[in-house]
């Protein structure tokens, strides 16, 4: 007898929860409108990068100070040991991507505009770009690729606040003349899967590099064979080579998504895309089935437990209407932190703290959405990722960390719950 869990959403939180649930012996179905923020975000695991605008060197040493400022943060709903376990688990499950790092120290990676940005865990193709030790960096861009501007990076990085002195310069290469036209990152990445393109890059760069320079390239070094490409470039250029994440679509994010979904498929998880979870049938305070709308109507997925990982406003897990009312879009769960209709939702200056920013679904210590009295709305509904109240992830640089930690923790909370038998989906 297996147990079915329904995961709503296919971003990092949902994929993490699903994979972890299979390890607890659950049969899992993921229902999602489409891919999540993996396709947008850099694929680094950012646990905590800034507290009150100050850069964080060590996430583990900064949580107390952080919680004093953000008492209702999602990290308060998980144990530190769980965050650590989630990172270790993630690195092990995705060994092929070679994630390195941890909670003790943030790495510093250059962004595509040349800011030294903190991350806890980074994939192998980016590690060479760690700025903390300083040194000589060269950023290589491609004329014709509009989403990467190496001289902007180099000139800003030269002025960046970093622990050790560094130099940075830019090189721009003309891409091979094969009528590339308006070239997106994805098409460029596909080209780097081919030997021809790697040869071209190595030949073009050979006489343009100084000794001991670390070579930064836009994060487009292949979709399917990125590991191989990266390793080959390091070997042939005899220098550290690293990718710099840039505008969406995130190629490293696509690789992460592919790696996770490959593991999920191997574990027998059904991933149903192009559908929208629209509600639930419940009995006795527990969800019995999730209602899912597809092109032809509504299907009901029986569920022993449910993980709601539908994302925040960006992904449509939360919605604000024109009258200022914020709603959770699947189950109409209570929302915390949203300004009341008619009150100020946005600050007049863009970088100021935005009143609407921290709104989301409040949860208990098992990540179950709660009502105004703090009681779980459903005994078997857990929430994870960007839908959770209390975070401003794009400022904290905590988005992937929250998704990974809470996705992992939601699955572990479910493991502790009583098991009932499940049937096939019914129409």
């Amino acid at each position, binding site marked *: 007898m297996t147990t079915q869990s329904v995961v709503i959403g296919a971003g990092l939180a949902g994929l993490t929860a699903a994979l972890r649930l299979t390890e607890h012996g659950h049969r899992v179905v993921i229902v999602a409108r489409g891919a999540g923020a993996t396709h947008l975000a850099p694929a680094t695991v950012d646990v905590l990068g800034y507290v009150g605008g100050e850069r964080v060197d060590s996430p583990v040493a900064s949580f107390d100070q952080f919680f004093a400022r953000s008492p209702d943060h999602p990290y308060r709903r998980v144990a530190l040991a769980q965050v650590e376990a989630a990172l270790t688990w993630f690195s092990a499950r995705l060994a092929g991507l070679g994630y390195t790092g941890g909670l003790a120290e943030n790495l510093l990676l250059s962004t595509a505009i040349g800011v030294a940005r903190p991350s806890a865990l980074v994939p192998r193709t980016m590690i060479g770009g760690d700025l903390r030790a300083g040194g000589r960096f060269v950023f290589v861009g491609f004329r014709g690729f509009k989403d990467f501007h190496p001289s902007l990076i180099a000139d800003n990085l030269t002025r960046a606040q970093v622990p050790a002195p560094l130099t940075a310069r830019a090189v721009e290469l003309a891409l091979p003349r094969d009528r590339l036209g308006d070239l997106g990152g994805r098409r460029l990445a596909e080209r780097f899967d081919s030997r021809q393109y790697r040869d071209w890059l190595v030949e073009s760069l050979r006489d343009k590099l100084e000794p001991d320079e670390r070579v930064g390239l836009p994060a487009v070094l292949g979709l399917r064979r990125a590991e191989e490409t990266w390793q080959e470039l390091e070997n042939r250029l005899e220098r550290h080579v690293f990718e710099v994440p840039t505008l969406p679509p995130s190629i490293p994010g696509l690789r992460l998504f592919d790696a996770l979904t490959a593991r999920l498929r191997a574990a027998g998880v059904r991933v149903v895309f192009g559908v929208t979870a629209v509600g639930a049938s419940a009995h006795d305070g527990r969800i019995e089935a999730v209602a899912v709308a597809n092109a032809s109507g509504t299907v009901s997925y029986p569920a022993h437990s449910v993980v709601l990982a539908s994302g925040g406003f960006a992904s449509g897990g939360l919605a604000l209407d024109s009258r200022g009312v914020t709603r959770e879009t699947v189950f109409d769960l209570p929302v915390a932190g949203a300004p009341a209709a008619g009150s100020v939702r946005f600050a007049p200056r863009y970088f100021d703290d935005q009143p609407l920013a921290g709104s989301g679904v409040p949860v208990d210590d098992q990540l179950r959405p709660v009502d105004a009295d703090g009681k779980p709305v459903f005994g078997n509904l857990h929430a994870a990722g960007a839908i959770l109240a209390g975070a401003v992830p794009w*400022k904290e640089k905590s988005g992937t960390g929250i998704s990974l930690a809470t996705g992992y923790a939601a699955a572990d909370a479910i493991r502790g719950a009583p098991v009932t038998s499940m049937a096939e989906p019914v129409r």
Partner: protein
Amino acid sequence: MNSLEADVLVIGGGSTGAGVARDAALRGFSTVLVERRDLGDGTTGRFHGLLHSGGRYAVKDPSAARECISENRILRRIASDCVEDTGGMFVSTPWDDPDYGDLFLKGCQDTGVPAEEIPVGEAIRREPRLNPDIRRAFVVPDAAVDPWKVVWACARSAEEHGARILPYHRVLDLELDGERVVGARVRDEHSGEELRVRARVVVNAAGAWAGQIAELAHCTVNVRAGMGLMIAMNHRFVNMCINRCKRPADGDILMPIRTVCVIGTTDLFVPDPDVTEIRQADVDLLLDEGEKLVPGFREARALHAWVGVRPLFEETAKVADTRDVTRSHALLDHDSRDGVAGFLTITGGKATTFRLMAEVTVDAVCQHLGEQRPCTTADESLPGSERHVMYRLDARLAAREPVPQAEEIVCECELITRSALEAAIDRRGTTNLDDIRRLLRLAMGPCQGGFCIYRAAGILHHGGRVDVSVANRALLDFLEERWKGVHPILHGDQLRQSRLDDWIFQGILDVEHLPA
């Protein structure tokens, strides 16, 4: 201090000022135009883009209606590249008195505005998103005009005829010689340098700011600022200019303009045209009025909100409602009016009649200078409009279609190529991405700069064009400026978009930690 000499100094770089400068230059006067900010950055660039047929004024303001239809016909010809022939409709919704339609038709007849009632079914066939419960519909020759294209075409034409066009030159003082205005002291807002412009006639075309300029010559010009809110929606719900068939009121027009449509407007006196704010109540009002025209409007995707200030001139009376102030222009000869020679003020009016306003102004300039030089602007096409081909929405797409993959598109929403962006940066010599926005419509589409502004900053910096700190500043300033128009209407899908932009700028690029 550097100095310039000219026959005519024009103060104000909106459509009126640019029109005056062009008209004067075409008549052979040496001309200088100064504008404190960018051309078309004031009222001109902040309206909904309606080229009036005159229908809106047919009942209440017949002389304004007559001017409108006459100028409408002229601009379709001489500014064809700036005008899209959308056509317009006046519709009676269930909230409007259907009998007003009879008054409307009569007014149109009396003023020569072509108007024809069509069956409601036909109206819905032409505009399928319209409220199916409308009761009457009238077709008029309204059109959509791109104000920035008009202003820049006038400026280019003026320059081709020898004029000096100086954006970002603020008037500090008018120079008086006894009871005569002989020029102005202006400051280059970029370099900080001062410049003296001596002129035989000074034309105050500062619109809602005309009172402030007139005061520098000790003249009192009572221009009141009527603030109006506009909201751009993410695509064209309608392809014709849709007017409510009733007396002019808040939220009575929905305009298709370039890739978006704009609902307008409100009308509120403000004491200072530089101090405006977007009020939530006005946003709600426009969304509700939009809902009456196009069901679903209220929760549809709004992109951007902004306010413009109309110059409303009243020589004497106190008027309670700004809508009761005539939309006709006022030309003030300060010699006969105030005993100050060499000084004219042209204000009031509306974008549709800017050419006429320029004509009467330069006629008066001629009189002052004792010259007889006829106006030619009604016949001479603006640069880009020589072939009398009207603008079409698919113009940019059509230009790219022969070689669709020729080069990078920096702004996908508005189909702006890298070479077009570079040409604009170099031609204008500007580092202000908001200036570029007005020239090219950069970042005016659904993502509001989410993708193109990083690219534009990179291109601005590329090849050492500007220092990195200037490129950073351009990006950050743009984000702040954009936010002003974005946050008042953020909800629904546009909030999703805005969140994605937060992720891009703050999450991925971390721009708030750029070195100062």
